[in-house]
């Protein structure tokens, strides 16, 4: 059993932890980072292996040792989820993610008030707890910019200080300057998608991705090998936290990373302050870190779980839970899919960065009139391989054959044999609303390798608002598939209620301590030296992948901690 003292302890060294470690370290604060997985290097990702990294999920939490359970509703028994779509190593999910790097729209930050203003209060499902953010796009713009330029994002501006630019996303909020790197090259699925959607009057563009289209900051550019989603990059062209902020944190001399460590408790004293954390070491030892500032930045489940497990007499319902909102308002994207296949040409969708290659934003957020549609908010629509990963195992798992073709046997073999190189998947990443009964709590039956109760997710996306949105989008995507000139267009199967990727909520941010867990900086209302930063604080999710917004929030929190909290610890708002 070891006890160490430090200024700051950060739990989870992913998209948020790495940024905080580097920024606070640069400001002279001594930082210890806890990471339950290993610290890998670019050399570990060569050569690529679909079985190991995609199918067996080696860069993700092990579903047996680190189970997270799911049930569709409170009367069902929860079962361990078969895939955990987040990271389990230094750099977190940014090591294996698809790298989509979006700024949310202005109205994404006020999904409730904007909807009420344009369509009236009745347009919001009565039971939805979708809420405005306590932060605006304008507040975050400088930090979006910082993330794009420090990490390295490739794309083309569509709205430069209010001037709309064809070829970029004309629906994006105004940005002060263009991306630091030009867009990545298009593959054939991107070309087909761009042609098809333009015919329909939509506005296609190359998706902004944290992959280097040119050498940048002494890092090599992308080789278009296609192994992105689920894989580490074999040339370090993916702007993961592993190759960007962690080396920067190392260079400060103020950062120590402890890998193979599992934080199981946040320590608090009778005055109501956090005093540090307890963790299990890789050798099974039980250790303590005493810290002036505790920052939680694991994936969302572990924020709620840690705060619940750290309850005391003073905080009987878990830490930072005086509002009773801890673990609530959880939501997640689902991916509705339409497949387009060609008899007269090849597509070779396995080439080039694999996730959401080309996008239209025409049906996202409130970029289209929802009057009479029966649902609010929309989805980002993009083109990609069936599972955003293009290898044949993933394709066999996710490319549902068209109606009339079975999933095995001679006809299936011939289908896969012919169309593996001749198809593209059109995906709608839907902005599902938050509902108070979509929750994370502690599973009473399932425990992890440390004997801790597994996080339990109660969630079913199939609400009337969400089902109506999916049907609308499916029809749009079928139209796109036909406009792309495909020989065959058909719908993919929908998930049976389970959450997809990008989970949000559980420690919601807000302006009011009575209805939220943290403030805009991720500082808990109840314990000023305890921060929770990441997508668990999102009050709504947008149809965009969350990572760049998570990173912008991390930069904003780091800025507030360094400029204000460091000299005068206390409530930041």
């Amino acid at each position, binding site marked *: 059993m070891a006890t160490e003292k430090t200024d700051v302890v950060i739990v989870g060294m992913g998209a948020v932890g790495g940024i905080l470690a580097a920024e606070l370290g640069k400001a002279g604060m001594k930082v210890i980072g806890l990471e339950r997985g290993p610290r890998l290097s670019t050399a570990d990702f060569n050569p690529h292996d679909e*079985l190991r990294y995609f199918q067996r999920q080696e860069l993700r939490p092990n579903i047996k040792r680190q189970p997270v359970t799911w049930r569709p509703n409170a009367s069902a028994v929860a079962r361990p989820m078969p895939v955990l779509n987040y990271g389990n190593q230094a750099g977190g999910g940014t090591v294996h993610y698809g790298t989509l790097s979006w700024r949310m729209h202005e109205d994404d930050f006020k999904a409730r008030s904007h909807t009420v203003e344009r369509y009236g209060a009745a347009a919001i499902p009565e039971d939805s707890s979708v809420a405005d953010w306590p932060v605006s796009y304008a507040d975050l713009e400088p930090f979006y910019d910082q993330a794009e330029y420090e990490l390295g994002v490739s794309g083309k501006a569509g709205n430069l200080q209010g001037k709309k630019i064809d070829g970029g996303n004309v629906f994006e909020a105004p940005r002060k300057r263009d991306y630091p790197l030009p867009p990545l090259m298009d593959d054939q699925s991107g070309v087909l998608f761009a042609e098809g959607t333009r015919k329909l009057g939509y506005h296609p563009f190359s998706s902004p991705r944290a992959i280097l289209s040119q050498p940048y900051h002494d890092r090599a550019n992308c080789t278009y090998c296609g192994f992105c989603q689920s894989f580490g990059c074999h040339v370090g062209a993916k702007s993961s936290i592993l190759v960007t902020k962690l080396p920067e944190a190392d260079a400060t001399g103020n950062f120590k990373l402890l890998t193979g460590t599992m934080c199981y408790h946040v320590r608090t004293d009778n005055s109501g302050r956090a005093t540090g954390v307890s963790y299990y070491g890789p050798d099974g030892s039980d250790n303590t870190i005493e810290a002036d500032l505790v920052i939680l930045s694991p994936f969302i489940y572990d924020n709620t779980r840690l705060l619940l497990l750290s309850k005391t007499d003073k905080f009987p319902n878990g830490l930072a839970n005086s509002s009773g909102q801890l673990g609530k308002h959880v939501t997640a994207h689902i991916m509705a899919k339409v497949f387009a296949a060609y008899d007269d040409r090849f597509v070779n969708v396995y080439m080039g960065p694999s996730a959401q290659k080309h996008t239209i934003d025409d049906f996202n957020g409130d970029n289209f009139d929802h009057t009479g549609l029966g649902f609010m908010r929309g989805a980002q629509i993009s083109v990609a391989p069936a599972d955003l990963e293009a290898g044949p195992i993933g394709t066999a798992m996710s490319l549902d054959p068209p109606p009339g073709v079975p999933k095995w046997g001679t006809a299936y073999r011939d289908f896969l044999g012919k169309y593996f190189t001749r198809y593209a998947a059109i995906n709608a990443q839907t902005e599902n609303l938050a509902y108070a009964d979509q929750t994370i709590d502690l599973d009473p039956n399932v425990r992890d390798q440390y004997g801790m109760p597994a996080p339990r997710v109660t969630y079913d996306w199939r609400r009337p608002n969400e089902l109506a949105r999916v049907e609308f989008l499916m029809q749009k995507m079928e139209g796109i598939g036909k406009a792309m000139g495909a020989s065959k267009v058909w719908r993919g199967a929908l998930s049976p209620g389970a959450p997809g990727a990008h989970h949000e909520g559980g420690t919601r941010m807000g302006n009011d301590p009575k209805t939220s867990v943290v403030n805009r900086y991720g500082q808990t209302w109840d314990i000023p030296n305890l921060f929770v930063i990441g997508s668990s604080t999102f009050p709504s999710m947008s149809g965009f992948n969350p990572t760049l917004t998570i990173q912008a929030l991390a930069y904003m929190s780091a800025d507030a901690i360094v400029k204000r909290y460091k000299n005068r610890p206390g409530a930041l708002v």
Partner: protein
Amino acid sequence: MKKHDESRREFLVRAAVGAGAAAGVVASAGLVAPDAIAQSHEQMEGGSSTAAAQHPNGPEHGAFFNHADSATIAAFTERLMPSAPDKPGAREADVLNYIDLALAGAYTDLQEFYRHGLAQLDAYCRGKYKEAFILLVPEKQDEVISAMEEGKATGFAWPAAKEFFNTLRTHTMEGMFADPLYGGNRDFAGWRLVGFPGAQAIFSPTDLQSKQAFNRAPIVGLQITAKGPAARG
């Protein structure tokens, strides 16, 4: 050395030389990262590699399955991905070898799942058809598989019929398409079936613009790049 090992050896040599040459071409266009060049050199030098993972008892089974179970798995997976002339299936890919090795290694925790599943499958076939699965004609075998897929096959407790079918389908696809390093996808049978070129380190702008099948470079697998200097010669 068995015949398929010889052809694999020849294939790998061709693959290595081709990959090196291709990477060299793109490198001169200034698009390739140093790692990729180093890798391609390694491929050229270490190309004449040995066969993929095989356990001592032979190329098909013995790490986990007994003879009867291996015959059942071979027959079942062959119905899921049937072989035909010029269309490699589970037999050509040696899916049985993949599953057998996986159950003795990465999937050790599924051994009981398979034992129970196979026993239930056998009981179901003997109950309904008075024969073991392997003795049924292909049409009857397909009937059994359909009944499992639809959850209609009776007598299954754990694993449920559908669950066992789903696992067998998943493992068949893994055996068809995982790198040959893991004992299936023999001679890249699965990748040849679908036209996947493997773990190419790079695609050029011309590749990305092509509407044709990709056949500039040969298939690249793990074996040729995984061999360090000690394993050479």
